[in-house]
Protein backbone atom coordinates (compact mmCIF):
# COMPACT_ATOMS: atom_id res chain seq x y z
CA UNK A 1 0.00 0.00 0.00
CA UNK A 2 2.88 2.39 0.74
CA UNK A 3 4.97 1.53 -2.31
CA UNK A 4 3.70 4.55 -4.30
CA UNK A 5 3.75 7.19 -1.57
CA UNK A 6 5.32 10.53 -2.49
CA UNK A 7 8.56 11.57 -0.90
CA UNK A 8 8.44 13.31 2.47
CA UNK A 9 11.10 15.73 1.31
CA UNK A 10 9.01 17.50 -1.30
CA UNK A 11 7.82 21.04 -0.64
CA UNK A 12 4.13 21.23 0.23
CA UNK A 13 3.35 22.94 -3.06
CA UNK A 14 4.74 19.90 -4.85
CA UNK A 15 2.01 17.53 -3.67
CA UNK A 16 -1.12 16.95 -5.73
CA UNK A 17 -4.52 16.30 -4.17
CA UNK A 18 -4.09 12.59 -4.77
CA UNK A 19 -0.64 12.66 -3.14
CA UNK A 20 -2.04 14.28 -0.01
CA UNK A 21 -4.93 11.84 0.23
CA UNK A 22 -2.65 8.83 -0.13
CA UNK A 23 -0.35 10.26 2.54
CA UNK A 24 -3.27 10.79 4.93
CA UNK A 25 -4.46 7.23 4.38
CA UNK A 26 -0.97 5.84 4.94
CA UNK A 27 -0.86 7.27 8.43
CA UNK A 28 2.34 7.74 10.45
CA UNK A 29 4.88 10.28 9.27
CA UNK A 30 3.22 10.68 5.89
CA UNK A 31 -0.09 11.65 7.42
CA UNK A 32 1.66 14.13 9.71
CA UNK A 33 3.47 15.71 6.77
CA UNK A 34 0.25 15.88 4.76
CA UNK A 35 -1.56 17.67 7.56
CA UNK A 36 1.27 20.08 8.16
CA UNK A 37 1.09 20.98 4.50
CA UNK A 38 -2.69 21.16 4.39
CA UNK A 39 -2.71 23.39 7.46
CA UNK A 40 -0.45 25.87 5.70
CA UNK A 41 -1.91 25.51 2.22
CA UNK A 42 -5.47 26.27 3.29
CA UNK A 43 -4.61 28.80 6.00
CA UNK A 44 -5.53 31.66 3.68
CA UNK A 45 -9.15 30.73 4.47
CA UNK A 46 -8.43 31.58 8.09
CA UNK A 47 -6.82 34.87 7.12
CA UNK A 48 -9.77 35.78 4.94
CA UNK A 49 -12.22 34.74 7.65
CA UNK A 50 -10.41 36.79 10.29
CA UNK A 51 -10.61 39.73 7.93
CA UNK A 52 -14.38 39.65 8.33
CA UNK A 53 -13.97 40.34 12.01
CA UNK A 54 -17.40 39.46 13.20
CA UNK A 55 -15.82 36.11 14.00
CA UNK A 56 -13.00 36.30 16.51
CA UNK A 57 -9.61 34.92 15.70
CA UNK A 58 -9.94 32.19 18.33
CA UNK A 59 -13.30 31.09 16.99
CA UNK A 60 -11.87 30.88 13.49
CA UNK A 61 -8.82 28.91 14.62
CA UNK A 62 -11.03 26.52 16.59
CA UNK A 63 -13.30 26.05 13.58
CA UNK A 64 -10.28 25.49 11.36
CA UNK A 65 -8.82 22.87 13.70
CA UNK A 66 -12.14 21.05 14.02
CA UNK A 67 -12.53 21.20 10.26
CA UNK A 68 -9.13 19.57 9.76
CA UNK A 69 -9.99 16.79 12.19
CA UNK A 70 -13.32 16.13 10.44
CA UNK A 71 -11.53 16.40 7.13
CA UNK A 72 -9.10 13.68 8.23
CA UNK A 73 -11.85 11.27 9.14
CA UNK A 74 -13.81 12.13 5.99
CA UNK A 75 -10.79 11.29 3.84
CA UNK A 76 -10.32 7.98 5.66
CA UNK A 77 -14.01 7.26 5.17
CA UNK A 78 -13.66 7.85 1.43
CA UNK A 79 -15.95 10.88 1.38
CA UNK A 80 -13.81 12.73 -1.16
CA UNK A 81 -14.68 11.17 -4.49
CA UNK A 82 -12.47 13.39 -6.67
CA UNK A 83 -15.45 15.17 -8.16
CA UNK A 84 -13.96 18.50 -7.13
CA UNK A 85 -10.72 19.77 -5.64
CA UNK A 86 -9.52 18.75 -2.21
CA UNK A 87 -9.43 22.40 -1.24
CA UNK A 88 -13.09 22.90 -2.08
CA UNK A 89 -13.94 19.71 -0.16
CA UNK A 90 -12.17 21.15 2.87
CA UNK A 91 -13.90 24.50 2.36
CA UNK A 92 -17.29 22.80 2.65
CA UNK A 93 -16.28 21.31 6.02
CA UNK A 94 -14.73 24.55 7.24
CA UNK A 95 -17.84 26.49 6.32
CA UNK A 96 -19.99 24.14 8.38
CA UNK A 97 -17.60 24.36 11.31
CA UNK A 98 -17.81 28.15 11.18
CA UNK A 99 -21.59 27.89 11.24
CA UNK A 100 -21.36 25.45 14.18
CA UNK A 101 -19.16 27.92 16.05
CA UNK A 102 -21.73 30.64 15.49
CA UNK A 103 -24.60 28.41 16.64
CA UNK A 104 -22.84 27.82 19.95
CA UNK A 105 -22.20 31.57 20.40
CA UNK A 106 -25.48 33.46 20.19
CA UNK A 107 -23.72 36.83 20.41
CA UNK A 108 -22.05 36.46 17.03
CA UNK A 109 -23.39 36.08 13.52
CA UNK A 110 -22.00 35.00 10.18
CA UNK A 111 -20.97 38.03 8.15
CA UNK A 112 -22.59 38.03 4.71
CA UNK A 113 -19.28 38.70 3.01
CA UNK A 114 -17.63 35.80 4.88
CA UNK A 115 -20.54 33.55 3.97
CA UNK A 116 -20.11 34.52 0.32
CA UNK A 117 -16.33 33.98 0.46
CA UNK A 118 -16.67 30.51 2.00
CA UNK A 119 -19.43 29.60 -0.42
CA UNK A 120 -17.21 30.52 -3.40
CA UNK A 121 -14.31 28.50 -1.99
CA UNK A 122 -16.60 25.50 -1.79
CA UNK A 123 -18.06 25.96 -5.28
CA UNK A 124 -15.63 23.58 -6.89
CA UNK A 125 -16.39 20.89 -4.35
CA UNK A 126 -18.94 19.10 -6.56
CA UNK A 127 -19.98 17.24 -3.46
CA UNK A 128 -23.21 17.30 -1.59
CA UNK A 129 -22.35 18.94 1.72
CA UNK A 130 -25.18 17.02 3.35
CA UNK A 131 -23.34 13.77 2.70
CA UNK A 132 -20.25 15.00 4.51
CA UNK A 133 -21.92 16.67 7.43
CA UNK A 134 -24.64 14.17 8.25
CA UNK A 135 -22.50 12.89 11.10
CA UNK A 136 -22.19 16.35 12.61
CA UNK A 137 -25.95 16.84 12.66
CA UNK A 138 -26.49 13.55 14.44
CA UNK A 139 -23.73 14.42 16.90
CA UNK A 140 -25.57 17.54 17.94
CA UNK A 141 -28.57 15.40 18.84
CA UNK A 142 -26.48 13.24 21.20
CA UNK A 143 -24.48 16.12 22.58
CA UNK A 144 -25.06 15.43 26.26
CA UNK A 145 -24.18 11.76 25.93
CA UNK A 146 -21.05 12.63 23.96
CA UNK A 147 -19.99 15.18 26.55
CA UNK A 148 -20.28 12.65 29.37
CA UNK A 149 -18.33 10.05 27.44
CA UNK A 150 -15.64 12.61 26.65
CA UNK A 151 -15.28 13.68 30.26
CA UNK A 152 -15.08 10.13 31.54
CA UNK A 153 -12.61 8.95 28.93
CA UNK A 154 -10.35 11.95 29.58
CA UNK A 155 -10.43 11.09 33.27
CA UNK A 156 -9.50 7.47 32.56
CA UNK A 157 -6.70 8.58 30.21
CA UNK A 158 -5.40 10.84 32.95
CA UNK A 159 -4.15 7.74 34.79
CA UNK A 160 -1.52 7.28 32.09
CA UNK A 161 1.53 9.46 31.60
CA UNK A 162 1.49 11.82 28.58
CA UNK A 163 4.31 9.82 26.96
CA UNK A 164 2.33 6.61 27.44
CA UNK A 165 -0.70 8.18 25.74
CA UNK A 166 1.58 9.38 22.92
CA UNK A 167 2.88 5.85 22.39
CA UNK A 168 -0.63 4.44 22.30
CA UNK A 169 -1.84 7.17 19.93
CA UNK A 170 1.10 6.75 17.57
CA UNK A 171 0.75 2.99 17.41
CA UNK A 172 -3.04 2.53 17.34
CA UNK A 173 -4.26 5.80 15.77
CA UNK A 174 -1.37 7.20 13.73
CA UNK A 175 -0.51 3.73 12.37
CA UNK A 176 3.13 3.77 13.31
CA UNK A 177 4.90 0.50 12.57
CA UNK A 178 6.55 -1.16 15.58
CA UNK A 179 9.95 -0.43 14.07
CA UNK A 180 9.15 3.31 13.77
CA UNK A 181 7.76 3.33 17.28
CA UNK A 182 10.98 1.77 18.60
CA UNK A 183 13.01 4.43 16.80
CA UNK A 184 10.89 7.33 17.99
CA UNK A 185 10.70 6.29 21.62
CA UNK A 186 14.11 4.69 21.93
CA UNK A 187 13.14 1.07 22.42
CA UNK A 188 15.62 -1.69 21.83
CA UNK A 189 13.74 -3.18 18.92
CA UNK A 190 10.33 -3.47 17.24
CA UNK A 191 9.35 -6.41 19.45
CA UNK A 192 9.91 -4.42 22.64
CA UNK A 193 7.99 -1.45 21.21
CA UNK A 194 5.02 -3.65 20.26
CA UNK A 195 4.91 -5.35 23.65
CA UNK A 196 5.05 -1.96 25.38
CA UNK A 197 2.16 -0.68 23.25
CA UNK A 198 -0.04 -3.66 24.18
CA UNK A 199 0.88 -3.40 27.86
CA UNK A 200 -0.15 0.24 27.81
CA UNK A 201 -3.37 -0.73 26.08
CA UNK A 202 -4.15 -3.09 28.96
CA UNK A 203 -3.35 -0.31 31.40
CA UNK A 204 -5.78 2.12 29.75
CA UNK A 205 -8.51 -0.52 29.55
CA UNK A 206 -8.05 -1.25 33.25
CA UNK A 207 -8.33 2.45 34.03
CA UNK A 208 -11.57 2.69 32.06
CA UNK A 209 -13.07 -0.34 33.90
CA UNK A 210 -12.09 1.04 37.31
CA UNK A 211 -13.68 4.40 36.50
CA UNK A 212 -16.91 2.68 35.50
CA UNK A 213 -16.97 0.90 38.86
CA UNK A 214 -16.13 4.10 40.73
CA UNK A 215 -18.47 6.53 38.97
CA UNK A 216 -21.96 5.45 37.92
CA UNK A 217 -22.28 8.29 35.40
CA UNK A 218 -19.25 6.87 33.57
CA UNK A 219 -20.87 3.50 33.03
CA UNK A 220 -21.83 4.94 29.68
CA UNK A 221 -18.29 4.18 28.46
CA UNK A 222 -18.21 0.60 29.70
CA UNK A 223 -19.72 -2.54 28.26
Amino acid at each position, binding site marked *: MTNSLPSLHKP*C*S*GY*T*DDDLVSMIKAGGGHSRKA*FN*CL*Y*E*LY*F*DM*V*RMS*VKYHRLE*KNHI*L*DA*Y*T*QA*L*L*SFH*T*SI*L*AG*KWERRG*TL*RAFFAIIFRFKCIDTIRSNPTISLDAALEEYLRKEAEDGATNPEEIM*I*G*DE*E*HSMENDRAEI*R*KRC*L*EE*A*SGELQPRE*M*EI*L*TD*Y*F*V*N*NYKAKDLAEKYGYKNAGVA*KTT*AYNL*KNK*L*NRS*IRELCEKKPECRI*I*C*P
Partner: protein
Amino acid sequence: MEHAPYETIELYIRNLMTPADRKAFETQVAADPDLAGEVAFYEALLLHRDKSLAAEWKAKGEKMLAGDTPPLKAATVNRFRIQWAAAASLILMLTATGIWYTQFYNPYGSVVTQYMEPYRYSGDLGVQIPGTEDRDWQRALALYRERSYEQAAILANGLENSRQYADDARLLGGVILIEQKHPEKALQKLRDVRSPVLRQKAQFYSALAFLQDKKPEKARAILTEIAKDGSSHYQDEAREILQKIE
Protein backbone atom coordinates in the same frame (compact mmCIF):
# COMPACT_ATOMS: atom_id res chain seq x y z
CA MET B 1 -1.68 -4.94 14.66
CA GLU B 2 -5.15 -5.04 13.34
CA HIS B 3 -6.36 -1.74 12.04
CA ALA B 4 -9.58 -2.89 10.44
CA PRO B 5 -11.77 -2.77 13.57
CA TYR B 6 -10.39 0.68 14.48
CA GLU B 7 -11.27 2.14 11.10
CA THR B 8 -14.88 1.11 11.63
CA ILE B 9 -14.79 2.29 15.21
CA GLU B 10 -13.50 5.71 14.11
CA LEU B 11 -16.33 6.04 11.60
CA TYR B 12 -18.75 5.26 14.40
CA ILE B 13 -17.15 7.65 16.88
CA ARG B 14 -17.00 10.48 14.32
CA ASN B 15 -20.61 9.83 13.31
CA LEU B 16 -19.72 9.15 9.72
CA MET B 17 -21.78 6.00 9.36
CA THR B 18 -25.17 5.92 7.72
CA PRO B 19 -28.03 5.60 10.21
CA ALA B 20 -28.56 1.98 9.23
CA ASP B 21 -24.88 1.08 9.65
CA ARG B 22 -24.72 2.94 12.92
CA LYS B 23 -27.68 1.06 14.32
CA ALA B 24 -26.22 -2.25 13.21
CA PHE B 25 -22.89 -1.41 14.80
CA GLU B 26 -24.51 -0.37 18.07
CA THR B 27 -26.34 -3.68 18.16
CA GLN B 28 -23.01 -5.41 17.67
CA VAL B 29 -21.38 -3.38 20.43
CA ALA B 30 -24.22 -4.10 22.83
CA ALA B 31 -23.82 -7.82 22.26
CA ASP B 32 -20.00 -7.92 22.42
CA PRO B 33 -18.25 -6.63 25.56
CA ASP B 34 -14.82 -6.94 23.94
CA LEU B 35 -15.93 -4.75 21.04
CA ALA B 36 -17.45 -2.26 23.47
CA GLY B 37 -14.10 -2.17 25.29
CA GLU B 38 -12.29 -1.51 22.01
CA VAL B 39 -14.66 1.37 21.22
CA ALA B 40 -13.99 3.01 24.59
CA PHE B 41 -10.23 2.43 24.26
CA TYR B 42 -10.02 3.90 20.76
CA GLU B 43 -12.28 6.81 21.61
CA ALA B 44 -9.96 7.74 24.48
CA LEU B 45 -7.01 7.75 22.09
CA LEU B 46 -8.87 9.85 19.52
CA LEU B 47 -9.78 12.39 22.16
CA HIS B 48 -6.16 12.60 23.24
CA ARG B 49 -4.94 12.90 19.67
CA ASP B 50 -7.54 15.53 18.77
CA LYS B 51 -6.69 17.58 21.85
CA SER B 52 -2.94 17.48 21.10
CA LEU B 53 -3.43 18.36 17.46
CA ALA B 54 -5.87 21.15 18.28
CA ALA B 55 -3.39 22.72 20.70
CA GLU B 56 -0.52 22.34 18.25
CA TRP B 57 -2.46 23.75 15.33
CA LYS B 58 -3.91 26.59 17.29
CA ALA B 59 -0.44 27.70 18.36
CA LYS B 60 0.74 27.39 14.77
CA GLY B 61 -2.26 29.35 13.52
CA GLU B 62 -1.71 32.16 16.00
CA LYS B 63 1.88 32.38 14.94
CA MET B 64 0.94 32.50 11.28
CA LEU B 65 -1.70 35.16 11.87
CA ALA B 66 0.83 37.19 13.83
CA GLY B 67 2.86 37.27 10.63
CA ASP B 68 5.83 35.15 11.67
CA THR B 69 5.27 32.69 8.87
CA PRO B 70 4.54 33.92 5.37
CA PRO B 71 1.55 32.34 3.67
CA LEU B 72 2.40 29.21 1.73
CA LYS B 73 1.70 29.47 -1.95
CA ALA B 74 -0.06 26.41 -3.22
CA ALA B 75 0.90 25.28 -6.68
CA THR B 76 -2.62 24.89 -7.77
CA VAL B 77 -4.59 27.47 -5.87
CA ASN B 78 -3.53 31.03 -6.79
CA ARG B 79 -6.70 31.98 -8.61
CA PHE B 80 -5.52 35.39 -9.66
CA ARG B 81 -2.45 33.99 -11.35
CA ILE B 82 -4.50 31.33 -13.05
CA GLN B 83 -7.00 33.93 -14.24
CA TRP B 84 -4.26 36.27 -15.42
CA ALA B 85 -2.48 33.45 -17.23
CA ALA B 86 -5.75 32.38 -18.85
CA ALA B 87 -6.47 35.95 -19.97
CA ALA B 88 -2.94 36.37 -21.30
CA SER B 89 -3.17 33.06 -23.15
CA LEU B 90 -6.48 34.09 -24.68
CA ILE B 91 -5.09 37.44 -25.82
CA LEU B 92 -2.02 35.74 -27.26
CA MET B 93 -4.14 33.18 -29.04
CA LEU B 94 -6.45 35.84 -30.46
CA THR B 95 -3.47 37.92 -31.56
CA ALA B 96 -1.81 34.94 -33.18
CA THR B 97 -5.08 34.04 -34.88
CA GLY B 98 -5.47 37.61 -36.04
CA ILE B 99 -1.94 37.71 -37.40
CA TRP B 100 -2.42 34.39 -39.13
CA TYR B 101 -5.70 35.51 -40.63
CA THR B 102 -4.48 38.87 -41.81
CA GLN B 103 -1.02 37.82 -42.92
CA PHE B 104 -1.29 34.26 -44.05
CA TYR B 105 -4.81 33.04 -44.58
CA ASN B 106 -6.59 34.04 -47.80
CA PRO B 107 -10.11 32.75 -48.28
CA TYR B 108 -9.83 33.54 -52.00
CA GLY B 109 -6.48 31.85 -52.46
CA SER B 110 -7.96 28.77 -54.07
CA VAL B 111 -9.90 30.88 -56.59
CA VAL B 112 -6.77 32.76 -57.62
CA THR B 113 -4.87 29.49 -58.01
CA GLN B 114 -7.63 27.95 -60.07
CA TYR B 115 -8.06 30.84 -62.51
CA MET B 116 -4.51 32.14 -62.67
CA GLU B 117 -3.08 31.29 -66.09
CA PRO B 118 0.53 31.71 -67.11
CA TYR B 119 1.50 34.66 -69.21
CA ARG B 120 1.51 33.89 -72.95
CA TYR B 121 3.05 36.24 -75.46
CA SER B 122 0.89 36.57 -78.54
CA GLY B 123 3.19 38.87 -80.47
CA ASP B 124 5.70 38.15 -83.17
CA LEU B 125 9.12 36.86 -82.21
CA GLY B 126 10.30 35.94 -85.67
CA VAL B 127 12.54 38.97 -86.37
CA GLN B 128 15.41 38.01 -88.53
CA ILE B 129 17.91 40.39 -87.02
CA PRO B 130 16.93 40.71 -83.40
CA GLY B 131 17.89 43.95 -81.75
CA THR B 132 18.74 44.37 -78.08
CA GLU B 133 15.12 44.77 -77.07
CA ASP B 134 14.07 41.69 -79.04
CA ARG B 135 16.78 39.61 -77.45
CA ASP B 136 15.90 40.96 -73.99
CA TRP B 137 12.24 40.18 -74.51
CA GLN B 138 12.91 36.68 -75.70
CA ARG B 139 15.27 36.15 -72.83
CA ALA B 140 12.61 37.47 -70.39
CA LEU B 141 10.06 35.03 -71.81
CA ALA B 142 12.52 32.16 -71.60
CA LEU B 143 13.39 32.99 -68.00
CA TYR B 144 9.71 33.31 -67.13
CA ARG B 145 8.99 29.87 -68.57
CA GLU B 146 11.89 28.49 -66.56
CA ARG B 147 10.30 30.13 -63.49
CA SER B 148 13.32 32.36 -63.02
CA TYR B 149 10.91 35.10 -62.08
CA GLU B 150 13.30 37.60 -60.61
CA GLN B 151 15.59 37.66 -63.62
CA ALA B 152 12.59 37.73 -65.94
CA ALA B 153 11.13 40.66 -64.01
CA ILE B 154 14.41 42.62 -64.25
CA LEU B 155 14.46 42.24 -67.98
CA ALA B 156 10.74 43.04 -68.28
CA ASN B 157 11.18 46.19 -66.18
CA GLY B 158 13.87 47.33 -68.56
CA LEU B 159 11.45 46.99 -71.43
CA GLU B 160 8.59 49.09 -70.02
CA ASN B 161 9.67 52.05 -72.14
CA SER B 162 10.10 49.95 -75.25
CA ARG B 163 7.99 50.98 -78.24
CA GLN B 164 7.12 47.39 -79.11
CA TYR B 165 7.12 45.52 -75.84
CA ALA B 166 6.08 48.08 -73.19
CA ASP B 167 2.57 46.76 -72.44
CA ASP B 168 3.64 43.13 -72.73
CA ALA B 169 6.49 43.83 -70.37
CA ARG B 170 4.11 45.45 -67.89
CA LEU B 171 1.69 42.56 -68.23
CA LEU B 172 4.47 40.02 -67.77
CA GLY B 173 5.76 41.99 -64.79
CA GLY B 174 2.27 42.06 -63.27
CA VAL B 175 1.78 38.32 -63.72
CA ILE B 176 5.19 37.59 -62.20
CA LEU B 177 4.29 39.74 -59.16
CA ILE B 178 1.02 37.84 -58.73
CA GLU B 179 2.96 34.56 -58.94
CA GLN B 180 5.31 35.93 -56.28
CA LYS B 181 2.30 37.02 -54.18
CA HIS B 182 2.88 40.75 -54.36
CA PRO B 183 -0.63 41.82 -55.45
CA GLU B 184 -0.30 45.53 -54.66
CA LYS B 185 2.79 45.91 -56.87
CA ALA B 186 1.13 43.74 -59.54
CA LEU B 187 -1.87 46.09 -59.61
CA GLN B 188 0.42 49.07 -60.20
CA LYS B 189 2.00 47.34 -63.19
CA LEU B 190 -1.30 46.11 -64.63
CA ARG B 191 -2.92 49.54 -64.28
CA ASP B 192 -0.40 50.96 -66.77
CA VAL B 193 -1.22 48.46 -69.52
CA ARG B 194 -2.83 50.67 -72.20
CA SER B 195 -3.06 48.53 -75.31
CA PRO B 196 -6.73 47.60 -75.95
CA VAL B 197 -5.57 44.11 -77.01
CA LEU B 198 -3.88 43.51 -73.71
CA ARG B 199 -6.28 45.52 -71.59
CA GLN B 200 -8.73 42.62 -71.12
CA LYS B 201 -5.95 40.39 -69.86
CA ALA B 202 -4.69 43.11 -67.57
CA GLN B 203 -8.23 43.62 -66.23
CA PHE B 204 -8.70 39.93 -65.49
CA TYR B 205 -5.30 39.64 -63.81
CA SER B 206 -6.14 42.77 -61.80
CA ALA B 207 -9.30 41.09 -60.47
CA LEU B 208 -7.19 38.10 -59.41
CA ALA B 209 -4.66 40.43 -57.80
CA PHE B 210 -7.43 42.11 -55.78
CA LEU B 211 -8.59 38.69 -54.57
CA GLN B 212 -5.04 37.83 -53.65
CA ASP B 213 -4.93 41.12 -51.76
CA LYS B 214 -8.17 40.15 -49.95
CA LYS B 215 -10.17 42.98 -51.48
CA PRO B 216 -13.16 41.11 -52.87
CA GLU B 217 -15.30 44.24 -53.42
CA LYS B 218 -12.79 45.67 -55.91
CA ALA B 219 -12.39 42.28 -57.57
CA ARG B 220 -16.18 42.01 -57.82
CA ALA B 221 -16.44 45.40 -59.51
CA ILE B 222 -13.94 44.42 -62.23
CA LEU B 223 -15.35 40.93 -62.67
CA THR B 224 -18.87 42.35 -63.03
CA GLU B 225 -17.66 44.58 -65.85
CA ILE B 226 -15.93 41.68 -67.56
CA ALA B 227 -18.98 39.44 -67.12
CA LYS B 228 -21.16 42.04 -68.90
CA ASP B 229 -18.66 42.53 -71.72
CA GLY B 230 -19.64 40.17 -74.49
CA SER B 231 -16.37 40.76 -76.32
CA SER B 232 -14.20 39.72 -73.40
CA HIS B 233 -12.39 36.38 -73.57
CA TYR B 234 -12.75 36.14 -69.81
CA GLN B 235 -16.53 36.54 -69.59
CA ASP B 236 -17.21 32.93 -68.51
CA GLU B 237 -14.37 32.89 -66.03
CA ALA B 238 -15.56 36.17 -64.54
CA ARG B 239 -19.09 34.82 -64.03
CA GLU B 240 -17.76 31.65 -62.41
CA ILE B 241 -15.52 33.59 -60.05
CA LEU B 242 -18.35 35.95 -59.11
CA GLN B 243 -20.45 32.97 -58.07
CA LYS B 244 -17.62 31.52 -56.03
CA ILE B 245 -16.89 34.70 -54.09
CA GLU B 246 -20.47 35.63 -53.31
